[in-house]
């Protein structure tokens, strides 16, 4: 009987710890990779809550797997620890979207140029739904204090590069 108990207890320990190891790793992978991405993006932008524009056309050497060669992007790592962050600018008319990502990689908000009323976006990212925000901006509640704003623009031809750069310059990311 005691032998059976021993085997039973050991089986429970093995299964329990196997599951804990599996679940812990699976849960940690997105957070680890997103943290790494946020660090690198913030470094290249010169800090958090600063918009960085990619200016080049076509496939670029990148550490991001399966990157999209047909988009020219702007990005901003947002940090809500000091308060809300405001992201605004004009949509690129061919196709563009502004996507917000939480610290665990969830894409918790996306808006594209067809959905926007006046060809522009003005978002204020907050961490608490009850938080009051300064004037202007669509209030978006982020599930995490840190995350990423990614603006995609579909650029079918290199000839459009100058116009894309002008569009990029209209977009900003800063504390509200």
């Amino acid at each position, binding site marked *: 009987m*005691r032998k059976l*108990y*021993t085997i039973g*207890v*050991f089986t429970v*320990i*093995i*299964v*329990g*710890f*196997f*599951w*804990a*190891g*599996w*679940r*812990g*790793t*699976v*849960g940690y*992978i*997105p957070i680890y*990779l*997103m943290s790494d*991405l946020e660090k690198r993006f913030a470094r290249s932008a010169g800090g958090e809550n600063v918009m960085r524009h990619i200016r080049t056309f*076509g*496939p*670029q*050497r*990148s550490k*991001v*797997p*399966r*990157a*999209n*060669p*047909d988009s020219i992007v702007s990005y901003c790592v947002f940090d809500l620890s000091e308060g809300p962050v405001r992201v605004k600018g004009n949509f690129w008319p*061919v*196709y563009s*979207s502004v*996507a917000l*990502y939480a610290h*665990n*990689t*969830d*894409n*918790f908000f*996306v808006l*594209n140029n*067809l959905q926007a009323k006046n060809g522009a976006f003005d978002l204020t990212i907050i961490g608490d739904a009850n938080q009051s925000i300064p004037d202007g901006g669509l209030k978006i509640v982020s*599930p995490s204090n840190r995350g*990423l704003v*990614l603006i995609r623009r*579909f650029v*079918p*031809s290199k000839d459009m590069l100058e116009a894309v750069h002008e569009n990029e310059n209209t977009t900003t990311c800063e504390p509200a």
Partner: protein
Amino acid sequence: MFIVNNCQFYIIRSDRNGKLINEENHETNHLIYKLFGLKNLIKYSFSAICVAVLAALCGSVTALLQTARLNGGASVDIISEWYYIHDTGSADATPQTRARFARTAILAVVSSEAIYFFSKTDAAGRPLDPKCSYEIVGSMPHALWWSITAYDGDKMFIPNALRRSSIHSQNVVCRAQNYFSIHLSPNEKEENWLPATDARDLEVMIRIYHPSPQFRADPRSAELPRIQRVSC
């Protein structure tokens, strides 16, 4: 002083000079003590800790192996040679899907905005070989724009003199209305050439941005282009 002896423990109280004040004998109800006794518990504890650490490590390694590939798991459907992954970027995604996407296609948008398919095989089920020539033939579901992109085995762009990694809805040359043939090949072609030169392994990805509501409602029923091997 607290002394444990198998299923019993004693509390011995003494004064500062060590003189015995009283002694209490308690029988513990602790399940583990009852099952194994103290000597066995110590013996088994070490083994249990080792087994637990090993089991946790095995779980961790299994998770790393499972999430290294995009294909696999409950969030994947197979449509001909294409894998369709749902719940991309979604808060409803399982932890495994989220981890898999974080490793293989981080920053994907939710399926209301874009739908992704990818393939590592041709229509006959053979792995895509960078030395072979393929034709990607068919049409695309209605969407604002779409693209077909070639990647190497590391999910990175394939270097080539044209600096071209994709054919998209604006630069594709169609044979008939919305019907195209894209050449995925190491050898240059006149039109719709997607270079696959100097690649280690090969995979193809379809992005469909701002898909029509009908397609978005049931992407599994989509008729996607087929990847046909022409020569090798």
